[in-house]
C-alpha cells in the first residue's frame, strides 16, 4: 500500500481537491479524457462572450465582410458603438433603472426573508414546518404563470409603467429563494448561543440583530448577490409592466429600442449586451464563492 502512504494527507474526508485515483492515469489518457473535452467545453461556453466583445468593437463595414477582414479580430477597433449607446440612446437611463430596481427589490426581499427565515427556523411557532415547505413551493411558481394577473393588478393599483411595479413584484421570486437559503444558514448556528442570550434577558429582536445576523453574514452576502443578479436578469415582468422608454430596464430596453424594423444595429446591440452584463459579472467575480455557495446551497437543502 505504498501508494496510499505517499498520498497527500487530507484534512477532511470531503476535501475540495479530491485527488482520488487520478494519479494512476497516464498522461496521454488524461489528455483525451480530461483536457480535450475541457478545452471544447470552455471554447463553446465562452465563445459567445468573445464574439459579443469582438462585434462590439468592430466598425460596421468589418462586421459583415469576412473575406477582407479577419472575423475573429477587429482590424481597426472602434468605440463608436459604445459612444452611440451612451450618448445617443436612453441606455444610461436603463442602466440606472435596472440598478434602482435591483437594489430596491433586493433590500426589500432580504429584510422580509431574514425575519421569515428566523421565525421558521428558530421561533418554531406552530406550523413553522409547513410554512417552510410553502416557501419552497412558492419558489417553484414560475413568473410565466404570474405575469398576466400581476399586470392586471399593477394596473388596478395605479403603479403600471413605473419602477415601483417592478420593485414590488420581483420579491415574489426573491423572498422564497432568500428565505430558503437563510434558513440553511440559521440552522447551522448553535442553539446554545441563543439560549445564553435568552437567559441574559435578550428579546427575540435583539437575538436576531445582535447574534444571528453577525454570524450569518456570509449567508446574507450570498442571498443578496443572488437576489441582485436575479432582479438584474429579470425580463418578462419588466417587458409586460413597463411601456415608456424612460422606465425600461437594460434587457427590455436593448431588445425593444435598439432593434428598429429590419435594421439591426449589431454593433450597438452587442455593446449593449456587453455593458449590461458587466455589473453582474463584476459582482460575480468578486464573490464567486458566495455565489456558488448560494446556488448549490439552495439546491442541496
Amino acid at each position, binding site marked *: 500500500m505504498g501508494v496510499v502512504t505517499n498520498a497527500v494527507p487530507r484534512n477532511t474526508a470531503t476535501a475540495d481537491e479530491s485527488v482520488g485515483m487520478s494519479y494512476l492515469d497516464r498522461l496521454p489518457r488524461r489528455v483525451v479524457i*480530461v483536457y480535450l473535452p475541457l478545452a471544447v467545453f470552455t471554447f463553446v461556453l465562452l465563445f459567445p462572450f468573445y464574439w459579443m466583445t469582438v462585434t462590439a468593437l468592430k466598425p460596421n463595414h468589418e462586421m459583415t465582410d469576412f473575406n477582407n477582414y479577419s472575423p475573429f479580430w477587429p482590424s481597426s477597433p472602434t468605440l463608436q458603438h459604445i459612444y452611440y449607446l451612451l450618448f445617443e440612446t436612453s441606455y444610461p437611463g436603463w442602466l440606472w433603472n435596472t440598478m434602482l430596481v435591483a437594489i430596491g427589490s433586493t433590500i426589500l426581499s432580504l429584510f422580509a426573508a431574514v425575519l*421569515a427565515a428566523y421565525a421558521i427556523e428558530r421561533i418554531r411557532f406552530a406550523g413553522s414546518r409547513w410554512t417552510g415547505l410553502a416557501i419552497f413551493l412558492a419558489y417553484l411558481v414560475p413568473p410565466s404563470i*404570474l405575469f398576466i394577473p400581476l399586470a392586471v393588478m399593477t394596473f388596478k393599483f395605479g403603479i403600471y409603467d413605473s419602477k415601483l411595479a417592478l420593485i414590488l413584484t420581483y420579491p415574489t421570486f426573491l423572498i422564497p429563494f432568500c428565505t430558503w437559503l437563510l434558513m440553511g444558514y440559521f440552522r447551522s448556528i448553535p*442553539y446554545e448561543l441563543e439560549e445564553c442570550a435568552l437567559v441574559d434577558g435578550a428579546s427575540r429582536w435583539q437575538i436576531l440583530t445582535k447574534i444571528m445576523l453577525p454570524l450569518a453574514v456570509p449567508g446574507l452576502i450570498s442571498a443578496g448577490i443572488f437576489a441582485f443578479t436575479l432582479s438584474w436578469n429579470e425580463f418578462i415582468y419588466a417587458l409586460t409592466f413597463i411601456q415608456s422608454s424612460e422606465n425600461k430596464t437594460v434587457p427590455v430596453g436593448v431588445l425593444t429600442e435598439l432593434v428598429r424594423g429590419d435594421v439591426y444595429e449589431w454593433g450597438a446591440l452587442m455593446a449593449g449586451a456587453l455593458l449590461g452584463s458587466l455589473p453582474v459579472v463584476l459582482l460575480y467575480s468578486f464573490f464567486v464563492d458566495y455565489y456558488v455557495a448560494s446556488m448549490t446551497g439552495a*439546491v442541496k437543502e
Partner: protein
Amino acid sequence: MAQAAVQEKILPPPQEAKGPSVLQSRGMAGFLFMLPALIFLLVFLTYPLGLGVWLGFTDTRIGRDGVWIGLENYQLLWEDSLFWLSVFNTLLYTIAASILKFALGLWLALILNEHLPFKSFFRAVLLLPWVVPTVLSAIAFWWIYDSQFSVISWGLIELGIIDTPINFLGDMENARASVIAANVWRGIPFVAITLLAGLQTISPSLHEAATLDGATGWQRFRYITLPMLSPLIAVVMTFSVLFTFTDFQLIYVLTRGGPLNATHLMATLSFQRAIPGGQLGEGAAIAVAMIPFLLAAILFSYFGLQRRKWQQGGAD
C-alpha cells in the same frame, strides 16, 4: 434535511417545557416575524395565482373587465391547433434540452472533479453563461445564428463542409434545434457546478476500495458515483425542467415563436395572446394549462427523492 432532523432529536428546541404563556408569545412572535414576507407573498403571489385561474374563466381584455364565461377559453384552446402545437413544442424543447443539459452537465462536472490546474478558475469562468442575463446572451446568439453573417456558417464554409450559409432561425427544424442549443448552452453550467458540489462530497476511499476489488471505471461510475449523486440529480433536474418548461426570454429574443410557430412555447403563446393580442383571459388560460405539467414534474422529483431515502436505509 436529514442533518436537521438529527439535530432536533439531540437538541430539542429550547423553552419546550415552559408554560402556555410562552407558547402563546412564541406564536405571536413567530407571526410578527413572518408578517412582511407573508403580506408580500399573499398579495403578490397567492392572490395573483388565484386571480390567474379566475381570469382563465373570463373573457377579460386589456382595458375591459371580463365576465365569467366558464370553460369557453379552454374549449377554444382544445380546438386550437396552435395551442396543441405549442404544447408539443414545449414538451420537445423541455425533454430535449433537459436530457442534453443533464448529460453534458454531468460530463463537465466529472471533468472538473478531476485534479486539474487552475480548477477554481475554470469553475468560475465556466459559470459565466449562467450569470449573464439570458436576454443579453440570447442577443449574442441571435447574431451568431444570423442567416447571412453567422460565424458558424462562415467557419463551416471555410472548412468546406457546407456550401451555403445555414438558415438557423428561418427553417422549422433548424430553428427548434437552434433554440434548444442556446438553452442547453445556458443550462450546462448550472447543472455542472451543482453536480460538482455533490461529487466533491463522495469520499475517494469508496472509489479506491472498488478499484481494489477490480471494478472498472464504468462500474465505479454506475455503482458508486451515480447512486451517491442521485438525490442531487433529482433536485437539480427538477429545477432545470421547471425553468425550461416555463422558458420565455430565449424564445422571445431569438424567434418570437416563429418560423411558422415551430418554436412557440406555451409561455410565449400565452404572452402573445394576452399582451400584444389583448386577450388576457385566453392568455391566463394557457398559463393555467401549464400548471398540471409543473405539478407532474414536482411530484416526479418528490418520489425520486423518496426512493433514494429507502435505498439508503433511511426511516422515510
